[in-house]
């Protein structure tokens, strides 16, 4: 008799939808169907039962092929690598539970690791900006219940956060927003006419790489100062018009994404967007929210912060102190500068998502990748250790893009004999203790 698991949290993006209904076979082994999820979320749940899943650790052979090894062999090899290396990049963490992160940090503190998460190539710029100028923000429920001016700047939820617009930002009816979409004015600022732009009342096409100038113009216009005729491809009349319309609202919100974090200026683009938001709070209520990508990258930032005080790129290599400097202790810089001796990847795929020069650097170092599935990183690693999928085959805490903590649920059993991240890391930690005790 198949059973339905309700209130399931989706382990894909930072929207962390928690209303999924998953039907599983009575033996708890197979997912039969998924309701309420977006196309990507559904695919993630279906992935568990795809053929050809690797269920045991594999070690790369001299001829480039992989040979199955036992978990114990993999754990021993990994522990030895960590203990030997003077400085190890321990990257990823965005697709695992906060509980697993804690164990990982304990290991890093012993072996002198640099713990970095996906923010480093995603919203790291946003975190830097917040460190420079703070951030007036709110939970997504506030947007649903109050927002009447919504700006999507350099983000494309229609593709990256598919249910964001229906759950929080454009369509839902809330306590003070009974008219739903009709009661809101939606703006989209982007260099492309994205599918999100299609949902907006107003599309402002900015020349790629000119967001900083355009936001500076928004701030200048908000203070009633003069502007040049065209800024970043946008005529000044349009800027004055939009600023006035925004001021006409009661509760405004800016959602921004990698269109700002990845382009020229990086953190400065967000910094000035936050400064604009701060300005607007002298006139009305205004918030700004980063569209965080991985479902638990925010959680990694939270755990690192309460344990060490920094949200990512935490350098524990001295073992006596925690340090942080983006541009120095961030993964891409560490790899390109060859400032680490070994790499430990977990719950993300730098091989696919890092620029090639840093991937090449990684491929030349002892590397272990922990991931439920084969990916680009596993293929350039010395060892691939498969684990149960967090949020599907095991539970744990996760943090939404607005930092709201939500529990992910176990809906099916992992293939027989597979370890969870927590179990694996705990075993590696124990082995590290043995090896270091022996020294």
């Amino acid at each position, binding site marked *: 008799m198949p059973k339905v698991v309700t209130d399931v949290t989706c382990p*894909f*993006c930072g929207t962390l939808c928690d209303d999924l209904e998953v039907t599983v076979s009575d033996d708890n082994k197979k997912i039969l169907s998924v309701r309420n999820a977006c*196309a*990507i979320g559904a*695919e993630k749940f279906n*992935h568990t039962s*795809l053929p050809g899943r690797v269920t045991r650790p594999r070690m790369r052979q001299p*001829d480039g092929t992989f040979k199955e090894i036992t978990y114990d062999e993999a754990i021993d090899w990994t522990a030895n690598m960590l203990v030997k290396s003077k400085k190890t990049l321990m990257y990823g963490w965005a697709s695992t539970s906060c509980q697993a992160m804690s164990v990982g940090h304990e290991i890093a503190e012993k072996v002198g690791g640099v713990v970095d998460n996906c923010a*480093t*190539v995603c919203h*790291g*710029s946003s975190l830097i900006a917040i460190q420079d100028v703070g951030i007036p923000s709110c939970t997504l429920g506030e947007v649903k219940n109050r927002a009447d001016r919504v700006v999507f700047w350099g983000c*494309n939820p*229609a*593709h*990256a956060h598919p249910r964001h617009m229906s759950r929080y930002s454009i369509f839902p009816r809330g306590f003070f927003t009974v008219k739903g979409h009709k009661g809101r004015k939606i703006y989209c600022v982007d*260099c*492309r*006419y*994205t*599918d999100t732009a299609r949902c907006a009342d107003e599309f402002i*096409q900015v020349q*790629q*790489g000119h967001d900083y100038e355009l936001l500076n113009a928004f701030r200048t216009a908000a203070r009633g100062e003069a502007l040049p005729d065209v800024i970043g491809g946008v005529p000044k009349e349009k800027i004055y018009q939009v600023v006035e319309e925004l001021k006409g609202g009661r509760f405004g919100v800016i959602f921004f994404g*990698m*269109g700002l*974090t*990845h*382009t*020229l200026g*990086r*953190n400065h683009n967000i910094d000035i967007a936050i400064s604009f938001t701060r300005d607007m709070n002298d006139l009305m209520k205004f918030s700004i929210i980063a569209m965080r*990508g991985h479902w638990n990258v925010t959680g990694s930032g939270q755990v690192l912060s309460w344990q060490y005080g920094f949200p990512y*790129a935490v350098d524990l290599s001295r073992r006596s102190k925690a340090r942080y400097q*983006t*541009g120095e202790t*961030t*993964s*891409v*810089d560490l790899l*390109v500068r060859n400032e680490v001796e070994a790499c430990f990847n977990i719950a993300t*795929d730098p*091989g*696919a*998502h*890092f*620029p*090639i*020069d*840093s*991937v*090449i650097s990684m*491929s*030349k170092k002892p590397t272990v990748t922990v991931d439920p*599935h*084969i*990916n*680009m990183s596993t*293929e*350039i690693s010395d060892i691939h250790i498969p684990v149960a999928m967090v949020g599907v085959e095991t539970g744990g805490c996760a943090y939404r893009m607005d930092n709201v903590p939500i529990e992910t649920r176990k809906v099916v059993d992992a293939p027989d004999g597979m370890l969870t991240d927590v179990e694996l890391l705990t075993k590696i930690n124990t082995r590290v203790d043995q090896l270091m005790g022996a020294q």
Partner: protein
Amino acid sequence: MTDKITLNMITCRTIKQGVGMEAGKTSQKYFDACSIIEMHADDFKKLGIWKNTNVRVTSSVGSVIVKAVETRQDLYPGLCHIPMGPWANRIVPAYTYSTGEPCFKGFPVNVEVAMNEPIMSAVNVVKDACGLLRK
């Protein structure tokens, strides 16, 4: 009409890329979603090619063969897009301006026709660059 044009490259998420990623990095879905370059119709004309033609995209750090396609998410002429993934990252400069964040969006690339050159699989794009590909 010319055999090589210089464009401004951005690499972004797409829903197909997301679905493909969850279907598996070695899946056909992922290959189809990410081994492409989206360009404006005018740039197709400039290059004198039809859509779905293979092109070589070259940046300061390397080059990659992808399939040129049109997109409903309109770009302006001179702007092009490869969905984030191994093909895009084969040409993304790693320079971070000391922020940790590489140049994923906004770097110059040359695009030239490569009609008969094959597109590598995701794994091979990476292995090839790392010198791990056994030819």
